[in-house]
């Protein structure tokens, strides 16, 4: 605003006296010699020697050096020469007054004498910065990932978590284009003669439930950024994928990305680049979650209405993340509308949801509340099996988020999440689990170069089983409590350097199981597994450095320090014999707060980008991660009641090293992205199990766990199309994930100490995700996936033991179940295409598993009585096409 006022004054001056071109100044001649002097000094010199007064803004001339020789040069031409480099012009107001004018402003008045267009390529030496914020014009929400592009330079950036962007460019006149998903593109002319800020407000396109724009990134982001192995999905992309039972699901979309697999339908969690499911750090508004699934994996914990943006780091994990060795799934929830209240929701066959958002203080503070509930009991009534009819289940979850912009420099965010799941098998066993988290974050901007954020998280995850049949009635409860505090500083001294520094500390308390007899009649004894406590502290520093436009590097170091705290007893096993309950030779007791075990790890991270051409680059990355808490599960898919355990003297932290090499190329004006990434990983101290180990309520669990090592490698090829009508991606992954358990005694080896495929090792994986806009209101999307069947242990022979047939199995995971493939289709009809309509609705029809393939989840063998060989059976979790219909709506006042 101040700048505009300034121009206004200038214009006024000119209009008042524009005709008084003083001839006397024209005749003044200058003789001087300047060698590499700052322009300010030169102008100072002129003012003194020639009794001139020169008016200008200091930042216009900042950093401009002058080397010039004048001999009897007319004053006007001399000044012109001096200013040329700074892309400034001038106006002689009277014979003593010279007013310097940026070229753009000058062009308004003197288009005949000064070139009015910035010429690309003819770089001025003056670098200015353009910064600002991209917001939704209607709601005032910032746009994360909006792309800000200077067309003439082809230079762009992406708005950060607060919608802020900064671009450093040579001074000049440019066309600025701002795009964000679902918003009308904003294209405007900007004159950048000095650093300035510019707020951009975007309007929604009409059919906002299903946006046309796909990319949340700068068009050339995948080639230009240092990131590799990073996938960012906007919720709009997630929404467009065909879904299961009409439920938009974040995790399901993540699984469609290259390098991500799951053991099968209905399995909670996902595997990234050969890692187990507990090796993924899942963050929702920075709060770590221990269970990402509702209803045993058919829904994810993320309410799709609430999600703003999903980022999966499977390689190149920044130093600010730690604690898990395979990946980071960072889910950021949206901020409430700061302009007007909105009610939205959806009604589906299995679950419904509702969301309210409204301003608390207009343009300053807002809240958003989301709720979901599921009623699968309705569907269960139509199942022939009585035990299934007697089953029942539910889940509900609530999200709440408040945003408060205290000042231009301070922002406060509070976010809370509460969920509860329950499922009863038959009339007897009930599983329940629930998560509660709260996050508070304070962002403070010291200057446009230095930003800070402080975050506190409190969380609780509890899970249990209840059985009611006498005499074995019981309840078994487990719980994890955690608290986390972290502080991050971001410093960008120049466009070439970016520094990040931070520290975090997490506190955990695990209650691995408390068994309480269900009634007086129960013959069970109460069992109380001792609590486990630990603290994980970390410090990190990273630096991103743009050496030159072709090469940039980023490197960082994280140091994590882990303390297993008392009170607690630790068993000492005889080092000479295999660990068993009987080989315990001593028990060490630790007092409250005493350090039972300390571990520390340096975790270096590095990546390098070399641009090969305008739109292709090669990237190289390395990272090491350490993990101190472990999910203890030996079932095929993790169950929601599997226990978590913290490292102790007998259970070492897991370590993972990854190197990756990637090639990225964009074609056709960045609408087609090609990428190829290869990785190799080594994993140490993985948790494996003795065959048939019993994990629950096992006071000598350490003795049933075996340390394993792993290696994983793969090649991920991806082609992604971003455009208007046809969008989507095709990806092919070849990957292997192998494990080895080679202990000192045969009992502590698996498969004689040889490498064997992990449960989720699926070498070939092909995914196609396509979305075709048929008309303005109708779109069709399809999703096809193919993967190799997962490894399984097959029977080799049979023999009779005590009159009963026993099956002898092969070595672990030496065979494979049949290959998996599936096609899903979805058809979405929008109710309106009015711009900024107050009532927007859409119908989504989808069919999951269109051709009804019975993809086997597992193969098992049921021995039949009476001397026959056990029959082999295939279990398919979903064995037919599953159609669904969902109605979504959004009401704005």
């Amino acid at each position, binding site marked *: 605003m101040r700048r505009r006022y300034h121009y206004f004054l200038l214009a006024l001056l000119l209009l008042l006296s524009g005709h008084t071109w003083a001839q006397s100044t024209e005749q003044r001649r200058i003789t001087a010699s300047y060698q590499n002097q700052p322009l300010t000094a030169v102008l100072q010199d002129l003012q003194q020697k020639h009794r001139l007064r020169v008016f200008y803004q200091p930042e216009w001339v900042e950093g401009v050096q002058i080397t010039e020789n004048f001999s009897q040069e007319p004053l006007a031409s001399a000044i012109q020469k001096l200013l040329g480099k700074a892309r400034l012009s001038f106006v002689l107001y009277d014979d003593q007054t010279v007013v310097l004018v940026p070229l753009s402003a000058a062009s308004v008045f003197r288009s005949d004498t000064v070139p009015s267009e910035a010429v690309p390529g003819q770089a001025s030496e003056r670098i200015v910065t353009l910064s600002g914020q991209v917001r939704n014009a209607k709601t005032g929400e910032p746009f994360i990932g909006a792309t800000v592009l200077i067309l003439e330079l082809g230079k762009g950036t992406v708005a950060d978590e607060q919608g802020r962007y900064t671009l450093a460019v040579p001074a000049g006149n440019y066309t600025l284009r701002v795009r964000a998903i679902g918003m009308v593109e904003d294209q405007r002319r900007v004159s950048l003669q000095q650093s300035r800020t510019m707020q951009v407000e975007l309007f929604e396109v009409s059919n906002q439930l299903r946006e046309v724009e796909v990319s949340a990134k700068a068009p050339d982001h995948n080639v230009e950024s240092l990131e590799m192995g990073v996938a960012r999905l906007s919720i709009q992309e997630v929404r467009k994928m065909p879904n299961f039972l009409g439920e938009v699901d974040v995790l399901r979309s993540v699984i469609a990305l290259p390098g991500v697999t799951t*053991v*099968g*339908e209905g399995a909670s969690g996902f595997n990234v680049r050969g890692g187990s499911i507990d090796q993924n750090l899942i963050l929702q508004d920075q709060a770590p979650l221990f269970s990402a699934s509702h*209803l045993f994996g*058919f829904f994810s914990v993320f309410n799709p209405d609430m999600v703003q943006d999903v980022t999966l780091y499977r390689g190149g994990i920044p130093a600010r993340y730690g604690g898990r060795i395979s990946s980071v799934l960072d889910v950021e929830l949206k901020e409430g509308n700061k302009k007007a209240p909105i009610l939205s929701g959806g009604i589906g066959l299995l679950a419904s949801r509702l969301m309210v958002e409204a301003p608390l203080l207009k343009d300053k503070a807002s809240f958003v509340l989301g709720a979901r509930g599921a009623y*699968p009991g309705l569907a269960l009534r139509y*199942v*022939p*099996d*009585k*035990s299934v009819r007697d089953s029942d289940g539910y889940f509900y979850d609530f999200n709440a988020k408040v945003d408060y912009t205290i000042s231009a420099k301070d922002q406060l965010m509070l976010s809370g999440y509460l969920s509860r799941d329950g*499922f009863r*098998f038959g009339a007897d066993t009930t599983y329940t689990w629930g998560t509660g988290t709260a996050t508070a974050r304070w962002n403070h901007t010291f200057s446009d170069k230095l930003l800070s954020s402080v975050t506190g998280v409190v969380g609780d995850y509890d899970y249990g089983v209840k059985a009611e049949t006498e*005499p074995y009635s019981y309840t078994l409860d487990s719980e994890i409590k955690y608290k986390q505090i972290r502080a991050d500083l971001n410093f960008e001294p120049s466009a070439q350097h970016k520094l990040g520094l931070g520290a975090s500390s997490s506190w955990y308390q695990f209650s691995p199981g408390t*068994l309480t007899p269900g009634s007086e009649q129960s*013959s*069970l*004894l109460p*069992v109380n597994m001792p609590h486990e406590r630990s603290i994980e502290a970390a410090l990190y520093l990273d630096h991103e450095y743009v050496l030159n436009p072709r090469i940039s590097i980023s490197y960082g170091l994280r140091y994590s320090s882990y303390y297993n705290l008392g009170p607690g007893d630790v068993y000492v096993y005889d080092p000479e014999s295999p660990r068993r*309950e009987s080989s315990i030779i001593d028990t060490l007791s630790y007092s409250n707060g005493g350090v039972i075990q300390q571990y520390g790890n340096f975790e270096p991270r590095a990546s390098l980008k070399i641009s090969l051409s305008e739109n292709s680059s090669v990237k190289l990355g390395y990272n090491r991660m350490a993990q101190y808490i472990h999910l203890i599960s*030996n*079932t*095929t*898919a993790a*169950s929601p009641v599997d226990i978590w355990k913290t490292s102790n003297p007998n259970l070492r932290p897991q370590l993972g090293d990854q190197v990756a090499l990637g090639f990225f190329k964009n074609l056709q004006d960045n609408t087609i992205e090609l990428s190829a990434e290869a990785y190799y990983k080594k994993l140490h101290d993985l948790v494996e199990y003795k*065959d*048939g180990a019993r994990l629950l309520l096992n006071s000598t669990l350490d003795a049933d766990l075996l340390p394993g090592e792993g290696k994983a490698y793969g090649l991920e090829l991806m082609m992604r199309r971003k455009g208007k009508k046809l969008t989507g991606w095709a990806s092919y992954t070849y990957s292997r994930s192998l494990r080895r358990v080679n202990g000192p005694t045969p009992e502590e080896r698996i498969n004689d100490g040889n490498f064997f495929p992990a449960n989720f090792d699926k070498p070939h994986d092909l995914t196609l995700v396509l979305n075709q806009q048929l008309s303005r209101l109708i779109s069709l999307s399809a999703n096809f996936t193919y993967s190799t069947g997962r490894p399984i*242990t097959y*029977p080799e*022979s*049979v*023999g*009779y*033991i*005590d009159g*009963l*047939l*026993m*099956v*002898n*199995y*092969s070595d672990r*995971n030496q065979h494979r179940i049949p290959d998996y493939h599936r096609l899903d289709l979805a058809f979405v009809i929008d109710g309106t295409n009015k711009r900024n309509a107050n009532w927007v609705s859409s119908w989504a029809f989808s069919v999951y598993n269109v051709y009804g393939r*019975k993809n086997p989840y597992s*193969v098992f063998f*049921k021995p039949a*009585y009476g*001397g*026959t*060989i056990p*029959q*082999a*059976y*295939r*279990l*398919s*979790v*979903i*064995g*037919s096409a599953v159609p669904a219909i969902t109605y979504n709506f959004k009401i704005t006042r």
Partner: protein
Amino acid sequence: MLLAVVLLQACVDPFELQTGEVQQSLVVSGMITDQNNPELNKVALTWTAPFDSENQQVIVERVHNATVTVQDNLGNSMPLYEEGRTGVYTLQESDFQVEHGRSYTLHITLPDGREYASRPEAVRPVPAIQGISYEFKQFVDVVRNSAGVLIERRSVGFEVKAQVQDPPERGNFYRWDTEGVFEFYTNTGDVPVPSVCWANMGSINTKVVANNDRLFNGRYFEQPVVVVPADIPTKYRIKIRQFSLTGEAYEFWRLFNEQQTSVGSIFDPPPARINGNMYSVTNPGERVVGYFTASAMVEDFIVIQRMFYAPFPGLPYELPLGDCRYTFLYPNVTNVRPIGF
């Protein structure tokens, strides 16, 4: 899982699988007990058969002419002799010397010279059976009918439970086995031949029943052992044998039970090889299947008066015709009244 359950019923398909095994392994199944009863103290030796679900019949190849001995930790040795050509090696009553607290090792030498041995097994004490109870119950199974449609099949039976008082010390491991004997009548008309007989079905267990006191140490508990069929309205004598086990033996039987009850669901542990306590002396890399158990044993029986619960669902029961000893409907038929009838 909810949907897994919803849709699972339609999605379990049998399929054929053949995984031929390259080499046959020796299968050892047997035990010695503290009771001097050749019916209990015996070891059966067979070879594994390749897994071939297409060919529904298992052809069991027995191991003949092996030299089998059991040694205790004091160096005493007891020979086991093959009865005929059955592959079953029995401890004779005259050779019996098994005592609590000792540990026993099985040694096998095949005619071709290959030698096998078990790790030592201790005979642990076993508490008495306090009593046997039973309950007449309805069972519901979902099965596929001939048209491929899932139907509920209701059946009735007597669930039999052993009542046990677990000793106060920790680490008691149990296994139960059964013997079923029932009475049946035939219509002999006027012919003076026996019309009341008893058939001995041997063990009627279809699954391994084993338990431990990990969760109810020192308590009184009821262990469901078997379901006696409710098919004909006559008396049924069910005998329960309760064996003590070592911890290692219990693990073997527990894993065997899990293999029998696993339905391949997503929460079942993946199937795995079950290792026993037998090993090859001549070739340490060779696999030997099975377990040699040493147990203390107690037994008790109860007679279920099934006629009080009749009629049972299904076709009405019709008496077979002729001499009850020669109907060939049931195995081990005798007209000598057993104890309890």
